């Protein structure tokens, strides 16, 4: 409100004459009052005839032009009927139709959680397991699933993204991050010849997800778009067996007193409680398969830290899973018989984080009972560094152009997450 411009402040409909306030000093400051040469001229004062009560002045309004001797007409203020979008002001929050007294803590795509993964686990009532599940790792290690010349193809992809795709000498992260993820997905898609069910998937972007749940007495919402999302016609099979799911009853969620679990979330009184997967009914690809979250800002302070990125991945995957579960099984809180599984990959173009989340229960208000499960594989480097120009010391090439510390294992996990559900 302190940043409202002069014209916007006027439109807040303050009664009274403009210009002079109660104490006679101008209500607008010098900045808004304006430079003398740009100020509009003051309107001429009304004729003295108007000060005589009971008298109807004869004006030249009917003649449509000035006539000496007749009074200057005073017209009622004109209401244009509409305001241009530039000058439109939002109504005060209390009058908004979606205003509620209870505050909701909203997680959107630029929220950085202070406690990172621990806080995300508490908010979603989830138990963490380090490393990807064996089912997915076996897909990674199975040589039948490998692409021919896989390492060579991945190295070409890295070269293309980091060096070749642009005329610049050193392409920036904003261009190379989406290029590398798109090229890796394209490489995974080449397996469509071996697994035709990979054709039953589609990629979507900019869908607005919105889910709300109660955690104790606090209302938490995940709202926003998470970037690119792979949707499938068939749901992912559950990973953990019933026994493992029942065993999570004994797990105690880690708290981080004195930090409040809602720190970092945006407190909001205007929100919509209804769930929204981001797609209408009848969408042919209803099951979210994998979310791809990119941190592609050029400057390091604008990018998320790996811990914050992992927390964002957990919350968005959980939001998608919860919306899907409520769509399939209704809004009542219960333990799901068919758990919903959603995957997520987060990267900044070099370091990858892999995540598989299994939603076992929608009963999130209490801290006891069955918990959800998340398998997290953090900080997988695809390559340690990429030299765009050769490093030459004393006329000898010390480091050639190309990646150093290439790890083919990371792409195998990426491929395994892609093939999961279709093999």
């Amino acid at each position, binding site marked *: 409100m302190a940043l409202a411009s002069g014209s916007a402040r006027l439109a807040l409909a303050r009664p009274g004459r403009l210009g002079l306030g109660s104490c006679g000093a101008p209500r607008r400051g010098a900045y808004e009052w304006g430079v003398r040469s740009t100020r509009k001229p003051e309107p001429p004062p009304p004729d003295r005839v108007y000060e005589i009560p009971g008298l109807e002045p004869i004006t030249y309004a009917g003649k449509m032009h000035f006539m000496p001797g007749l009074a200057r007409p005073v017209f009622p203020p004109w209401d244009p009927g509409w305001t241009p979008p530039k000058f439109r002001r939002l109504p005060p929050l209390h009058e908004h139709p979606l205003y509620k007294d209870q505050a909701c803590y909203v997680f959107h795509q630029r929220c950085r959680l202070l406690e990172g993964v621990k806080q995300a686990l508490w908010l979603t009532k989830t138990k963490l397991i380090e490393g990807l599940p064996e089912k997915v790792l076996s897909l990674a290690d199975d040589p039948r699933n490998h692409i021919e010349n896989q390492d060579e193809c991945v190295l070409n992809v890295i070269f293309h993204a980091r060096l070749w*795709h642009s005329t610049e000498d050193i392409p920036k992260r904003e261009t190379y991050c989406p290029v590398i993820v798109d090229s890796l997905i*394209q490489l995974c*898609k080449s397996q469509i010849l071996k697994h035709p069910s990979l054709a039953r998937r589609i*990629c979507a972007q*900019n869908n607005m997800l919105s889910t709300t749940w109660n955690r104790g007495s606090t209302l938490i919402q995940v709202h926003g778009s998470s970037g690119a999302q792979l949707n499938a016609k068939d749901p992912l099979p559950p990973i953990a067996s019933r026994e493992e799911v029942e065993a999570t009853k004994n797990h105690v969620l880690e708290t981080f007193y004195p930090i409040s679990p809602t720190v970092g979330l945006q407190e909001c009184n205007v929100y919509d409680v209804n769930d929204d997967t981001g797609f209408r009914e009848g*969408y042919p690809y209803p099951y979210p398969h994998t979310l791809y979250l990119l941190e592609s800002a050029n400057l390091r302070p604008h990018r998320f830290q790996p811990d914050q990125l992992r927390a964002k991945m957990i919350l968005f995957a959980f939001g998608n899973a919860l919306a899907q579960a409520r769509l399939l099984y209704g809004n009542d809180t219960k333990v799901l018989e068919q758990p919903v599984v959603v995957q997520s990959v987060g990267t900044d173009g070099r370091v990858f984080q892999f995540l598989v989340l299994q939603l076992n229960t929608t009963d999130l208000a209490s801290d006891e009972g069955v918990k959800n499960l998340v398998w997290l594989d953090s900080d997988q480097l695809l390559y340690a560094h990429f030299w765009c120009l050769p490093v030459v010391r004393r006329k000898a090439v010390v480091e050639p152009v190309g990646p150093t510390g290439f790890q083919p294992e990371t792409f195998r996990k990426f491929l395994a997450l892609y093939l999961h559900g279709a093999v």
Partner: protein
Amino acid sequence: MAAARCWRLVLRVPGLSLHTAAGAAVTAPEVTGPDVAAAPVARYPPLVASLTADSKAARQRRVERWQATVHAAKSVDEKLRILTKMQFMKYIVYPQTFALNADRWYQSFTKTVFLSGLPPPPPAKPDTEPAPALDVAALRAAACDCLLQEHFFLRRKKRVPLYLEREAIASPFLDQLVASLTGLLSARNPALAAAALDCKRPVHFYWLRGEEIIPRGHRKGRVDALRYQINDKPHNQIRISKQLPEFVPLDYSVPVEVPVMNCKPDKLPLFKRQYENTIFIGTKTADPHCYGHTQFHLLPDKLKRERLLKQNCANQIEVVFRANAIASLFAWTGAQAMYQGFWSEADVTRPFVSQGVITDGKYFSFFCYQLNTLALTAQADQNNPRKNICWGTQKFTVTWNRCLS
């Protein structure tokens, strides 16, 4: 007299020779004794024009010396660098243009012949097995899914206003369509499975064609080549590692003539600027996927059908599609050819073929382009019967009610 004096100087000081060719000619018979009778020995150094004189012959010699450096360049990058390092004023050709009858102008700039319809199908080889039947229903379903997802099913943050509709809806639809069709068709064409898919990557090409007399300036009255540059940004493109087979043989003579424009390109309107000359296919020369397959272009709002009809330019609707196809595909195939080391003095020995799909979100047109010649400069084009060929179809529409049924 002068020649005799030079001869004696060369004999006395064999290490310092004024003309290196002359020195070689002098020393050669001393080395190969018995073969003297076979090759007639030049007794005088070759009479060549001066290198620094202000004469046409000297200029020709300088041009030939420069061309020899290009021929002798060891790598393609070096060759491209020598060809593009000197910057002069050049015309900037925009593939997506509102200019009237731009397709005829672009045909004359690129020496292209336009033929309606698609190119003749390749002759069926008897030994290979017939290709599996095309699952049209699955492709149609995938295309409908992409269309419906963007136009109907996807819930976006705000209702998209009309002026942003193209980039917010038609652009992701085209991305999805290309990705899904590439995936589905890779069963029939394994090269598509290994292809590289580019999204909004630039394509640049720089070439010389024709000559003009410089009208004013300190070089007034002299003959100067006309330079052109295309800086294109196709919406999607598919690049493969093996070249597409040719549609027609390299020296196929097309009965149609290339249109000849009698005015300067400025009349199009086309404007000159001087900046970096770039030749780029979408990746640098080191990429193994250096041959093009298909480009996809999305026309901007400025050139949409309703706007052209309002301006009484109904006959320009097709022209917009054709001009875009000719310019973009010529730039792409030309850049591919230059990446293989061909240029105007070293013409292509095999035709470079690419395809293009141009759309405005609703109407699709399909084009095929075959580059038969890069020799478009005045010097190289004197005895060049080859022409580049562009095949193009009429517009096909994708309509709503057919998809929803």
